[in-house]
């Protein structure tokens, strides 16, 4: 967070990169500096307010962002599960640089573990199912990664894509796994009904407390989806913390080195294969967790829930947001999951618009909405070298 203290304005390359940065109309560097300069207590207070706001979102029923056509709590849960998946895929793709087109496979393994062991073949308790799902998914990640991670870049993409499809088709064709008709009665998280929380009701710009429309705190039912969102949000915060710790540790640096130049990293003594496998397993862990949550919210899963298309949406979320930056990735997931739900009124056109939006974003914001700081630094250095090579400025 020392970005503001150095004075990069003195070097022409970096000054030029500024002009590239704020194309959205705001200088992120300045905003980041202003936030960094705030006293620690104010910063924590700000974070606290943000967290409370996020938890309160389904109750606030804010006029513009609420979805008129579907239950807002359900939409928020969908968005949250996309965010979770995107955080997991970001470790694989953004940190370790492994293109995984079959990420939905892990999501499916997590969901199927909960469904099969919780409803179809056994009736284990939900508290046991979630850890079990995560463990099984992580093991499947290692089993899948061990042979395939030796394959280079683009081939890895197609091999993982193949594995994702194999998992779905196996579920589709195996009676033991529910086959095409899927699995019903997936256990929901145990409810503890503590108290009722009222929703707000908006009349123009004034908010009224609507005592008829309430959410029971921590009642995981069918009608009101807000508790699932709270659960997912909590998981996201935990994952974010772990993500941050991993990124700043030796593991994170090893991933970065592997991604940038595998041979150089290997020569420097980084056991690249083991770190790639670790990234794959960590990604699988988070994907499986997300799938398990999805299944226990949905109550019903079938192979149709895990189409290859979903992998592509996850990938789009990560790349659109800015692979390698966890907040960028969250933003990308929100864009990919929320926009189609918000505009369900335009049902027919939304995928067309989504495709065009991806096309435009990729072309006009190739670094992602929020590129990782390293990418911005690298871009600045590149531009500096270019301008020096062209002889426009002296070093």
């Amino acid at each position: 967070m020392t970005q503001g203290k150095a004075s990069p304005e003195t070097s022409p390359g970096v000054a030029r990169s500024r002009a590239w940065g704020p194309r959205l109309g705001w200088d992120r560097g300045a905003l980041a500096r202003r936030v960094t300069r705030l006293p620690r207590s104010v910063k924590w207070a700000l974070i606290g307010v943000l967290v409370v706001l996020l938890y309160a979102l389904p109750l606030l029923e804010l006029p513009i962002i609420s979805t008129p056509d579907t239950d807002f709590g359900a939409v928020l849960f969908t968005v949250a599960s996309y965010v979770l998946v995107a955080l997991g895929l970001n470790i694989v793709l953004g940190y370790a640089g492994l293109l995984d087109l079959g990420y939905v496979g892990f999501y499916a393994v997590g969901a199927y573990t909960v469904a099969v062991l919780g409803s179809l073949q056994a009736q284990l308790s939900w508290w046991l199912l979630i850890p079990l799902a995560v463990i099984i998914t992580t093991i499947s990640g290692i089993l899948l990664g061990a042979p395939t991670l030796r394959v280079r870049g683009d081939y890895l993409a197609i091999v993982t894509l193949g594995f994702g499809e194999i998992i779905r088709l196996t579920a589709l064709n195996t009676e033991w796994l529910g086959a095409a008709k899927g699995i019903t009665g997936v256990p929901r998280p145990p409810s503890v009904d503590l108290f009722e929380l009222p929703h707000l009701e908006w009349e123009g710009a004034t908010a009224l407390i609507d005592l008829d429309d309430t959410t029971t705190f921590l009642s995981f039912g069918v009608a009101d989806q807000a508790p699932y969102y709270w659960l997912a949000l909590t998981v996201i915060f935990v994952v974010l913390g772990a993500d941050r710790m991993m990124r700043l540790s030796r593991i994170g640096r090893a991933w970065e080195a592997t991604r940038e130049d595998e041979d150089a990293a290997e020569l420097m003594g980084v056991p690249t294969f083991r770190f790639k496998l670790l990234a794959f397993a960590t990604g699988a862990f988070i994907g499986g967790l997300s799938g398990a949550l999805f299944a226990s919210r949905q109550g019903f899963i079938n192979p149709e829930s895990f189409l290859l298309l979903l992998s592509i949406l996850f990938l789009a979320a990560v790349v659109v947001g800015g692979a390698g930056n966890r907040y960028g990735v969250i933003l990308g997931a929100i864009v990919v999951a929320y926009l189609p739900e918000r505009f369900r009124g335009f049902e027919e056109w939304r995928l067309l618009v989504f495709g065009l939006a991806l096309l435009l974003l990729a072309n006009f914001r190739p670094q992602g909405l929020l590129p990782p700081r390293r990418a911005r630094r690298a871009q600045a250095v590149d531009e500096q070298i270019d301008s020096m090579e062209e002889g426009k400025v002296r070093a």
Partner: protein
Amino acid sequence: MSFLIDNFVELTVTGLVLGAVYGLVALGYTLVYGVLQLINFAHSEVWMFGSFAAVWVTVAIGLAPGSALPAVVGVLLLALLAAMAMSGGIALLLERVAYRRLIRLDAPRLVALISAIGASFALAELMGLRDRVAGWFGLEDTLAPYVSSARDNTRFRNPLDTEGVFTVGGYTVSNVDLIIIISALLMMVALDQFIRRTRTGSGIRAVAQDSEAAALMGVNRARVIRATFLVGGVMAGAAALLYLMRFGVTRWNAGFLLGVKAFTAAVLGGIGNVRGALLGGFILGLAENYGSALVGSQWRDVVAFLLLVVILLFRPTGLLGESLGRARA
């Protein structure tokens, strides 16, 4: 097992037919990959648009069944031309809209993949919404035979009647089977010669080998890239007509699975390798057929993907290696 042995010839012939289509579509992936090292995800939509162009031509002409042979051949040729033109045009459009800017910026390859995925979504949806699009211009009644029930299967009425030509091992090989396999082989040979002998072909090879050095030697890189997309698109258009002659149905989202399979075929043969594409296509088609005869047709796609995984593990650059640039003149 006995099912496989009893129907061996039929499985082989239909496998080769399917493989020919895979191989021709795989060419588009392989060429673009060879030149740009990019997975052209939207190539499946290029194929899909070509298939609709072929359907529209037969609808427009509306040949009565059992017409004279010259008329049938004429209609098929027209459909072929239309499909090739449509696919080639869409491929060029893709290059312009989804790739050109990113190539110039030297953006990360992943971003180009996302751009192509976006284009693929948009193109498929556009076809699925063609009745609505026609509605904007108040043409949905005039164009009804072309645009109605846009989300359903669209049937292709093959003007050529399927007839048996000769019988081997209990299976009668039809004229359509022969046409498909032979024309795929012919087109592959023609393309191979085009890449090896013509000026544009050596430009493509040069850029594939070392794009910067090629540019220094006076190769117009932008033109070569356009040519690559065009050639891949034209081949996909031909594949679309051949596919329709045998399988008879297309729809707005039919490209996706076929595209994944064709890409698998390209990787199988060694991506970037023109001959590998056809070989990969044939092997994939055969393996799918034999495999589904052995373990049940519901496992068809699993067989295809497992084959891919196994081959990549033991031969990481595909069967024939990646060698668009290294192909000898």
